[in-house]
């Protein structure tokens, strides 16, 4: 029997406390959590303070953008003829991330990627002390492959709604295929969940998905805001939530959580919506909620090896994976709150929200430094 408590090693640091600008982080595999503490808490264990983020908590590797599904909002603009890094380079990237002390690695990408490659890279991450997770549409997934995916801590299947709701977001009917994959994975893997992109077409129709997952015994759901990246940029104005939906999405999700007893995560771009629901900034910070943490808690590498603050920002990046560990390239992310414009500057959630999603802001307003126009508080025209 394994132990009830398992501390996650910090590769490259020689210890279990990772020094941070604010103090340090202690990571656990069981129970799965990161504990962020201040310098005083660390006391004698305190090491040299880092002026900049020591390393991301998490890295996202988009391994491939070869895919034949043709989703209308694909953030990496997948297709059949695409260029991507070779496996050896991905292995070097994983080694570099491990040396920096990254805890979690989320793998994903085009759905024509070889399962063998995915599995071998996940093993590599495990060997180096990181926790690999996978998000997939489950395309081409067979029971034989599903059995081999135990190397992943968590696997999430993309399912943007039930029946027609799926097609409303993706632009094609892949619901049945996604559902079958979910069932196959559930049969072989303990920690299986669903990722659902929330867009204008399905935001008012989330209940059937909650009900389905409850009935299937799937307990984990991650809700993602539709982003204007890749092909998503061209359709963003008709996929983005309406002001009514933006203001109501968090209360609705929490109501559904209560009814169907699912564990729901909302992605970083929903932080303005969570803040606008009225919870105190102190409470939100304590549970680890953070708006844009691109370049600090999170980095991403795309199939061409470009390094971005997040997966939606690699296409505009001039950085390469070889710049990993150099936070100077992300100064515009890190300094955002110091130079925040109104109404963010006077908003009491500024330090938690950090201006919301800068990728959305840049797409809609033309400026990375503008407030997130999807924030319900910004839409009301006043600071929180």
């Amino acid at each position: 029997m394994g132990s009830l408590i398992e501390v996650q090693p910090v590769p490259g640091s020689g210890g279990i406390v990772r020094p941070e600008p604010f103090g340090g982080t202690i990571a656990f595999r069981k129970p799965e959590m990161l504990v962020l503490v201040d310098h005083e808490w660390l006391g004698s264990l305190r090491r040299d303070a880092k002026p900049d983020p020591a390393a991301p908590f998490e890295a996202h590797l988009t391994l491939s953008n070869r895919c034949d599904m043709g989703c209308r909002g694909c953030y990496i603009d997948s297709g059949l003829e695409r260029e991507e890094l070779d496996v050896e380079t991905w292995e070097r990237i994983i080694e570099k991330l491990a040396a920096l002390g990254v805890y979690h690695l989320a793998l994903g990408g085009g759905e024509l990627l070889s399962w063998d490659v995915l599995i071998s890279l996940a093993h590599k991450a495990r060997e180096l002390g990181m926790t690999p997770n996978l998000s997939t549409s489950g395309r081409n997934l067979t029971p034989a492959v599903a059995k081999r995916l135990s190397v992943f801590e968590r696997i999430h299947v993309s399912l943007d709604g039930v029946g027609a709701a799926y097609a409303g977001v993706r632009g094609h009917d892949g619901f049945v295929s996604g559902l079958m994959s979910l069932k196959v994975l559930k049969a072989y893997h303990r920690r299986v969940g669903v990722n659902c992109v929330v867009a204008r077409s399905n935001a008012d129709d989330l209940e059937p998905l909650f009900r389905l997952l409850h009935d299937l015994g799937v307990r984990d759901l991650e809700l993602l805001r539709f982003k204007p990246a890749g092909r998503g940029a061209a359709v963003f104005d008709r996929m983005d939530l309406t002001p009514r939906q933006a203001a109501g999405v968090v209360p609705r999700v929490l109501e559904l959580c209560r009814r169907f007893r699912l564990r729901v995560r909302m992605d970083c771009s929903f932080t303005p919506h969570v803040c606008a629901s009225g919870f105190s900034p102190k409470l939100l910070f304590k549970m680890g909620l953070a708006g844009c943490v691109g370049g600090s808690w999170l980095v991403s590498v795309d199939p061409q090896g470009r390094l971005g603050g997040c997966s939606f920002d690699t296409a505009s990046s001039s950085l390469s994976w070889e710049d990993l560990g150099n936070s100077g390239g992300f100064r515009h992310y890190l300094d955002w709150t110091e130079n925040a414009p109104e109404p963010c500057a006077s908003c009491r959630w500024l330090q938690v929200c950090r201006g919301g999603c800068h990728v959305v802001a840049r797409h809609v307003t033309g400026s990375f430094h503008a407030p997130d126009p999807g924030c319900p508080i910004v839409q009301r025209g006043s600071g929180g």
Partner: protein
Amino acid sequence: MKRERSKGRVLAVKLGSNPNSSSLGVDVTLLLGGGALVSLVSLLGGTLARWVLRRKKTGNGQSD
């Protein structure tokens, strides 16, 4: 015996790991329990972290 008083603060406890490969998520289910639940999680996380580090200091902890 007088127990040593804890110093410093647990700033945040992030539960779970992010299963999504495009953005970072946070478990909002905790909000259903309000401040009391979040404080409890923070207290338990801090206690567990301190216990692990104390064990490590005395040589009973897991190796890195």
